[in-house]
């Protein structure tokens, strides 16, 4: 069933079971996000990146747009002061654990962090937070992929897309809290070599944290 909602004084129509983020996305209204996939139903969205905040009439505080199901007549504001403040803080927090060295990064110019920073007019600095980077710079445990923890924003899309494509996942979150990374657990190396024929995680990674390993000569 189609329903109608108002977003930033604009009236849009959408399916009644979609999320606010999905409705806005379809209508061409951009809301910053990192961990959301277009196929995500509101109940299944991870709501982990904490960027897609909006204010909705009737809610006391800003809410993650990916996790709220649209209702007929809903009034949504995507750019209030409270929303922008939370989004900027989330971005600064992500940048505070990010190696901002864009030139050699394969995601340069296609990077979602760059896009969001540009959208928010925030730049790539992380002040007032101090930058804390992880060691080592590259995790080479995967047979054919390299993982850069200091580029990763832990959106978890690689883990989810791998499961969607293969019913099980070769990638998984490892470590906990601040030390969480995307890990690869030494499964069957032959099967892992097939990763190059799939490449879903590489294509979906918003920040170039997962890349195909180059031969030593090409580095």
């Amino acid at each position, binding site marked *: 069933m189609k329903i109608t909602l108002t977003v930033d004084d604009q009236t849009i129509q959408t399916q009644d079971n979609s999320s606010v983020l999905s409705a806005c996305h379809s209508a061409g209204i951009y809301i910053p996000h990192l961990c959301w996939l277009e196929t995500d139903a509101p*109940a299944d*969205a*991870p*709501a*982990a*990146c*904490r*960027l897609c*905040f909006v204010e909705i009439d009737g809610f006391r*505080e*800003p809410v*993650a747009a990916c*996790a709220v199901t649209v209702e007929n007549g809903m009034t949504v504001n995507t750019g209030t002061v409270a929303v922008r*403040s*939370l989004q900027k*803080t*989330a971005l600064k*927090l*992500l940048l*505070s*654990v990010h190696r901002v060295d864009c030139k050699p990064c394969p995601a340069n110019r296609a990077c979602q962090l760059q896009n969001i920073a540009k959208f928010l007019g925030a730049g790539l600095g992380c002040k*007032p*937070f*101090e930058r*804390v980077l992880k060691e080592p710079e590259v995790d080479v445990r995967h047979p054919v992929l390299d993982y850069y923890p200091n580029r990763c*924003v*832990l959106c*978890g899309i690689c883990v989810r897309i791998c499961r969607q494509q293969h019913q099980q996942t070769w990638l*998984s*979150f490892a*470590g*906990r*809290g*601040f*030390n*969480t990374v995307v890990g690869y657990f030494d499964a069957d190396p032959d099967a892992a070599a097939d990763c190059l024929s799939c490449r879903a995680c590489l294509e979906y990674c918003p920040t170039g944290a997962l890349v195909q390993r180059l031969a030593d000569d090409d580095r």
Partner: protein
Amino acid sequence: MTVDAMQRIQAAYQTLADEARARQAQFDQSPLPKIHIGMATCGIASGALETQAAFETALSERGIDAHVHTVGCVGHCYAEPVVIIDYPDSGFPPILYPEVTPGKAKMLVKLFLEEGDPRFEHVMGATVENEMIPSVMEFARFNRETRVIMDRCGRIDPEQIHEYVADGGYGALATALCRTPEGVIAEVDAAGLRGRGGAGFATARKWRAGWAASGSDKLIVCNADEGDPGAYMDRTLLESNPHQVIEGMIIAAMAVGAARGLFYVRAEYPLAVRILTSAVEQARQMNFLGTDILGSGLDFDIDLFQGSGAFVCGEETALIRSVEGYRGMPRHRPPYPVERGLDGRPTVINNVKTLATVPPILEKGGDWFRGIGTADSPGTAVFSVVGNVTHPGLVEIPMGVTLRELIFEICGGIPNKKQFKAVQIGGPSGGCLSADFLDTPVDFDALTQAGAMMGSGGMVVMDEDCCMVDVSRYFLDFTQKESCGKCTFCRIGTHHLLEILRRLTRGEGREGDLAQLETLGRAVKQGSLCGLGKTAPNPVLTSLAYFRDEYEAHIKEGRCPGRTCRTLTAFYIDLDKCARGCDACVGCCPVDAVFTTSNRKKGIDQQVCVKCGECMVACPPDYDAVVKISPATLAPIIERPAEKKS
């Protein structure tokens, strides 16, 4: 339900209860002395196993016949191991002895059980009113409590179901089975019961949603993943009276229409796991669990799941993920577990204490329960009061008792003539309240309003020697380590908060740090995904609000008012008090920082000192010459005399 069916249920229960009572009567009426030993984890940690062995050895050595009866915990942790000796032939009432070491156990067997002298100097009190020995009920720590949940704790053997049944246990279940699910929920609603897990959500509302949820494969889960530092109410309850929780769970299952139940217990509670496993098995044998319970047609059984100790798994959605076999990470709500829980099935999740409160409500009625506590928070609250109090332990009080009454009257106040500074309520999600809040009544809403929260019932009392910055650092360190890493604010935000606090405790605080703590703290509170992230900054935000002067002293003066932060404190020896020739401090110093001055008194080399405080402990009380001071620069410098050539 027909009258016939009700009579059948009551008759089935009556038969079981009669058997249990007959068995219990044999024990109660036995003329032999009975030695009741508290054997929950707290008792065992204080040496109850050794005490039990000493009793048994002494009894057999002296050829005395007596029952050694292991019971749960009475909640008086300061007095562990607690032993009650009931020796009817001696003419004395049952007597409670605190701190019964193996030596004391042997002595009591000889002098009391053999010679009839109860050794008054070791007695805390009698457990019943009598003419000979003052009763323990004369102490505030006993008589100010109202026990609904913990009533049977420390009285019965948790591993013997008949003791619970003989005491009226499972009677509420029989009553409930004679009613409709709506009737049971209405009773809980009338009681105004609010979830004891922390947030205080109305239990009846949750159950109604569970009842209304579609699906025949509903689940009820008991959340026993207690993880707050300093909180151990759930553990003690499961170790002391597991059947009351099981009974509550069966009633809840009947009310919401669940066919399976699950206990989520931390693996770090091995004794609770063992006792609960055996309790479930015994309940099954007596048909309180299984098929056609007490002939009512209700089928229900319980499994046990051991959590691996992640704090975040106490959050209900993370708990579900962990049972499903995934990494324990919360997801957003709605959908609430009651709509979509474990494996997508409707799942009602209740705290241990909530379920334990249900049988008394069904037994005595919702109105009775509402008569205890306050209008909006009826019933009792169980707190584990720990830290700088004279009588720490588990306390069950009616809601509405003030913090002052709880800490000073019931728990005996602050020991060692120190001043009260703060009380941390609700663990790492709660807040630090100052002395200004001592008259706050203990209930869900008043504590939340003050900036703390009821939480699951951990209460840490702190005296003047605690540094509030360091306490905040401690709690943040905890939440930061226990963060699951899923969402940006909790994963990275708490790290930055902790770094600032660490800096402050090292005396490297800067202008602007406090403002940043507040701004970032509020952002983490607002932006985090789950309840744990949303409450993680609370210890910092509340202590900043109520103890801002301490934070400022760290930054501006390099002074730690609690004299706790090592870089900001120093030890020195007061030469007016130091005794010539005494070497106590010299020998204990691990780094040879203490030297002898020219007049044979002692001095501390500040360059070498690691501030362990051993010299302060070692200095005889008669001299009391070692002084701890903050800021460190205030310590007078005493030159180490040049080494003599030998």
